[in-house]
């Protein structure tokens, strides 16, 4: 007994944050070792939302039946998940996708990126006590979901992309709907900046908090807004263009340490806000270039039976590099499907960047890396 007591550091305390915690963005349990209010160690415990995506995919008797399951990985940006998967399949099968399909895919993916960032930003503000921006973000997100619903029939899990094409064509007023949204959304970004981004209280809570230095971010394999928040110009849409992204003119916003240190929570946050503007630019260009005519299902193969082989394809999801590794053994069902989820990688960085901060700041850090637990656990 005496021995054990000797080994205990009596100033330390272990507490659990989550799994049912309003600011852990899903079911995540963080095991904190605290010294007073200072965090000495964080251990993320995951797996509460594990649904065997990979095993499920292997036992499907058709490659296209996997698509609805990819939706359910990151349910906040389902279109981007589907996009990654169909890209991989198309490369494996060597299918040429019609141009109209590519344009629609890009518009959809960018709309989804805005929707996802809106949710990420809104929830981040909510974590820090800013309730109003959350509602405004959701109002805007709702408009995007309406566009999605009119086209695909679903609001969250679309199953819209098919290998080689789309499940169906967009609805007749898609173009005007999207253009209307672009028009009304531009001023809302400014409003969001007024309300949240440059709000002094918000800056005080996020600047200099959870600093992720450039080198650490690269070493951990960070990607997406988290990596760009640390000042690294890396966007797969530019650096490893897929689909038709090389046709569009847009910039990669990076963190610059405007409010404090480079790579702090505010930088990661503002990258998302600026990315929404760039997405708007891409959508505008894509709407202009969208071919009027064309059958979106013309290149969809009747039966999918790839040759022996494997492929790894990555795409830029709103959270970072989303990769699919697919191995085929010349049968109707995949031999192996592996997803490289950006949220999982980013969660792994949490112990490194939250050491020595306060509990209240941990909430900000978790919010700023914008993880979706469905994708972490798969």
């Amino acid at each position: 007994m005496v021995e054990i007591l000797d080994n205990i550091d009596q100033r330390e305390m272990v507490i659990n944050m989550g799994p049912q915690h309003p600011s852990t963005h899903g079911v995540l349990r963080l095991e904190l070792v605290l010294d007073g209010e200072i965090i000495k160690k964080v251990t993320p415990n995951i797996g509460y939302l594990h649904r065997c995506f990979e095993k499920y995919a292997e036992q499907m008797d058709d490659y296209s039946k996997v698509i609805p399951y990819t939706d359910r990985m990151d349910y906040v940006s389902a279109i981007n998940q589907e996009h990654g998967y169909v890209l991989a399949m198309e490369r494996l099968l060597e299918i040429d996708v019609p141009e109209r399909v590519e344009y629609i895919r890009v518009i959809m993916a960018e709309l989804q990126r805005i929707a996802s960032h809106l949710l990420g930003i809104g929830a981040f503000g909510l974590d820090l006590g800013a309730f109003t921006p959350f509602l405004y973000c959701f109002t805007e997100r709702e408009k995007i979901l309406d566009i999605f619903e009119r086209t695909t029939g679903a609001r969250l899990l679309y199953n819209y992309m098919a290998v080689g094409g789309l499940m169906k064509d967009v609805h007749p007023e898609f173009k005007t709907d999207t253009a209307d949204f672009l028009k009304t959304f531009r001023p809302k970004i400014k409003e969001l900046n007024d309300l949240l981004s440059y709000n002094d209280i918000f800056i005080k809570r996020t600047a200099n908090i959870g600093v992720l230095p450039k080198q650490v971010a690269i070493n951990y394999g960070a990607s997406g807004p988290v990596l760009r928040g640390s000042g690294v110009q890396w966007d797969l849409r530019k650096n490893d263009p897929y689909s038709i992204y090389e046709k569009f003119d847009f910039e990669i916003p990076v963190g610059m340490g405007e409010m404090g240190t480079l790579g702090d929570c505010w930088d990661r946050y503002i990258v998302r806000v600026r990315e929404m503007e760039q997405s708007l630019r891409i959508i505008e260009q894509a709407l202009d270039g969208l071919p009027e005519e064309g059958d979106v299902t013309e290149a969809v193969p009747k039966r999918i039976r790839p040759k022996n082989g494997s492929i790894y394809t990555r795409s830029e999801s709103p959270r970072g590099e989303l990769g699919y590794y697919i191995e085929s053994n010349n049968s109707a069902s995949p031999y192996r499907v592996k997803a490289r989820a950006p949220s999982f990688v980013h969660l792994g960085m949490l112990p490194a960047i939250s050491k020595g901060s306060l509990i209240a700041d941990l909430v900000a850090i978790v919010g700023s890396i914008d993880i979706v637990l469905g994708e972490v656990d798969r």
Partner: protein
Amino acid sequence: MLNTVKEGWTTFKSIFTGMGVTMRHLFGPSVTLQYPDEKMELPKGARAKLYVNIDDCIGCNLCARACPVNCIDIETVAATSDVDLGKTSTGNPKRFWLTRFNIDMAKCMYCDLCVYPCPTDCIYMVPEYEYSEFDRSGLVYHFSNLKPEMVAEVKEKAEKEAAEKKRQKEEMMRKKAEEKKRKELEKQKLEANKSIKEDDSSSKPENNDS
């Protein structure tokens, strides 16, 4: 001192800018719907609930095979030759009794994959979303319109016909086999006769020699 005042001023300013935004929203139009009283109009093609127009279904099972979660359960019985089930509105002939067509909406993930392969477009989503149940079994929708007695009857009939067909087939097989055997025998006989004749003719010169 100056710094504190400056900081205070920026805080003050940013708070008031934020307040201005909320103020504008306060007097703007409301976006909230008071749900049970007001309802949002679902667009055409919204995926909310599956419906099967059973009169048009030909029982081809394609929808059940397309479903990733196996929530469509179809049982068909071949129609006997004395009944004509007619045609669907799309002109496809119906050849099966649909003795069971259940969709478990509790399992369904609204992926729409079952809708596309249907040759008669009789399975589709309807924009109806208020169908919660106290019991899970209430979410299994039965689309087959055959009464249990009818199901038993058609099954019996189909079985009988199948048995009859099987019997006929066997009979035919037997007959065919017999025929074959007979032919074979005849052939053998013929060949035997031939060889005898040949024997005869070949033996004749010998006889002459002697």
